[in-house]
């Protein structure tokens, strides 16, 4: 190592301005993200404090008006509540459905494993629009499920253009993220630990609840954060599977920006959603850290 560093140094013709050439590797991406990621975000924060002008998108007059309008309006609070409620439900269901899948993948051996993984990753790489469309074909009024119900002589069910449809779509689209996170945690658990519990007389059920489940909790928590944030900002799924019946915050924000051209208010709405999300996640991490402390290591 030291030898290589020596070699590197000898070859380096030091320029007058003493910038290490390695920094040149960092600069392009660094500058790119500063200009097109960091600055736009800061600009959006600034925009949320500006005033909408007549005939122009905004004027440089600072105000808190936008925030007061969002936070003082019961309508927005209802939409915010629904957005968080849906994201929370989606998170819970992805844990319930994702855990068995993750377990199967983490415990699979031989040639089965890559197949299980590929089948999990493939949907992840298909866009949310296509997947929502698949659900539209299945859940719609003349969809396959309703056709089946009618063939059985049952009543048609309202499966789409309501909360249920949106929830199904959210769980479907974000399930693989949860599975990957949980499977990663399950992989870390050594088989000996479970074997030890079994050999000491614990039933499989007890072994799972007292050993495997607590040890996999970090994966469940990190998967939960990921799914919750993704579900909060979902846009395609609520529109396609909820019609206009399930209004969530991202839909309102986009409407405000693209249809009403009210950037200050739209930015403020985005910031409120983002700020509340951070607050919820902060509380979540606090609680979970306390919970994790009880796990024997």
């Amino acid at each position: 190592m030291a030898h290589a560093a020596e070699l590197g140094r000898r070859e380096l013709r030091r320029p007058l301005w003493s910038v290490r050439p390695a920094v040149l590797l960092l600069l392009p991406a660094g500058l790119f993200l500063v200009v097109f990621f960091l600055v736009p975000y800061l600009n959006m924060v600034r925009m949320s404090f500006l005033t909408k002008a007549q005939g122009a998108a905004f004027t440089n007059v600072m105000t808190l008006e936008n925030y007061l309008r969002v936070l003082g309006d019961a309508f927005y609070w209802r939409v915010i509540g629904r957005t968080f409620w849906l994201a929370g439900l989606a998170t819970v269901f992805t844990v319930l459905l994702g855990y068995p899948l993750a377990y199967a993948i983490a415990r699979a051996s031989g040639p089965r494993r890559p197949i299980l993984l590929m089948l999990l990753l493939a949907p992840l790489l298909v866009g949310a629009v296509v997947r929502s469309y698949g659900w539209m074909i299945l859940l719609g009024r003349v969809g396959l499920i309703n056709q089946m119900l009618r063939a059985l002589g049952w009543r048609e069910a309202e499966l789409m253009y309501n909360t249920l449809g949106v929830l199904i779509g959210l769980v479907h689209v974000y399930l693989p993220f949860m599975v990957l996170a949980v499977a990663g945690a399950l992989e870390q658990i050594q088989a000996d630990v479970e074997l030890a519990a079994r050999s000491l007389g614990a039933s499989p059920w007890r072994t799972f609840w007292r050993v495997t489940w607590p040890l996999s909790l970090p994966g469940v928590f990190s998967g939960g954060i990921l799914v919750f944030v993704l579900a909060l900002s979902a846009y395609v799924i609520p529109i396609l599977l909820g019609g206009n019946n399930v209004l969530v915050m991202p839909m309102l924000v986009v409407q405000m920006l693209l249809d009403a051209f009210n950037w200050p208010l739209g930015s403020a709405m985005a910031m409120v959603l983002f700020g509340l999300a951070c607050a919820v996640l902060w509380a979540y991490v606090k609680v979970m850290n306390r919970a994790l402390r009880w796990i024997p290591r």
Partner: protein
Amino acid sequence: MNANLRQLGFLGVVVALYVFLLAPIAIVVIAAFNAGEYLRFPPEGLSLRWFGRFLGSEPFVRAFWFSLKLASMVTVLSTLLGGAAAFYVVRHAGRSRDLLQLFFVAPLQLPAILTGIALLIFFYSLGLGTRGMAGLLIGHTVVSIPYVFLMVGAVLLRFDRTLEEAARSLGASAWTSFRRVTLPLIRGGVISGALFAFITSFDQFPVSLLLVSVGNTTLPIQLFDYLRFSFDPTAAAASTVSVAMSVAVVWLIDRLVGLEQVTWGGPR
């Protein structure tokens, strides 16, 4: 009997979950090859007419080529930028390493729709607007860089640097040792990073939604607009094309690198 029954039950649950994951995608593909106006059970026979409709629809075809061109450019740009940054952060960053890592992964942590909104406002604030392809290229690259960064970073962390030292001490120049030793060894991470960047761009929705403009529409946006007003299987044919792209990418990654490398690819 008890243990067997339990295992059988578990197997049933896993199969059911995979059906849940894959059914909607399979249904889209089936609908695309189905002859009827909408999918009925039993299907009404095989037909390529919806693919014909897709190929005959100018907006869809134009959106497809546009997406392909855009995704290719995004792949090149984000692979170069993200790969170089990963090199610096893994090998040269000192105390700033954690901070830099956080920074380069940040576009992945923040909701893409928020990034799209921020960029839209930013471009208009500068008076540039979102005409043309540049806005989309920039936006997609921002959200693709983290994938390349993570995947190249992961292989670099596991890289045995004595191999480079050996090459250098045998007289290879820095460039030769990079080209002949380093690059072949980190190829896996670079390829999977690039392919992820490609599919991130090709399937991108939230960022595109805010940055598309008239005449510059991507396939997912075109599909979305179509689905809001019409249900017919032309959309299924378009979706099938996009599903085929994704399957090809997964297959390519598996053949070239192995999926295992990708999934748990994060720094160990």
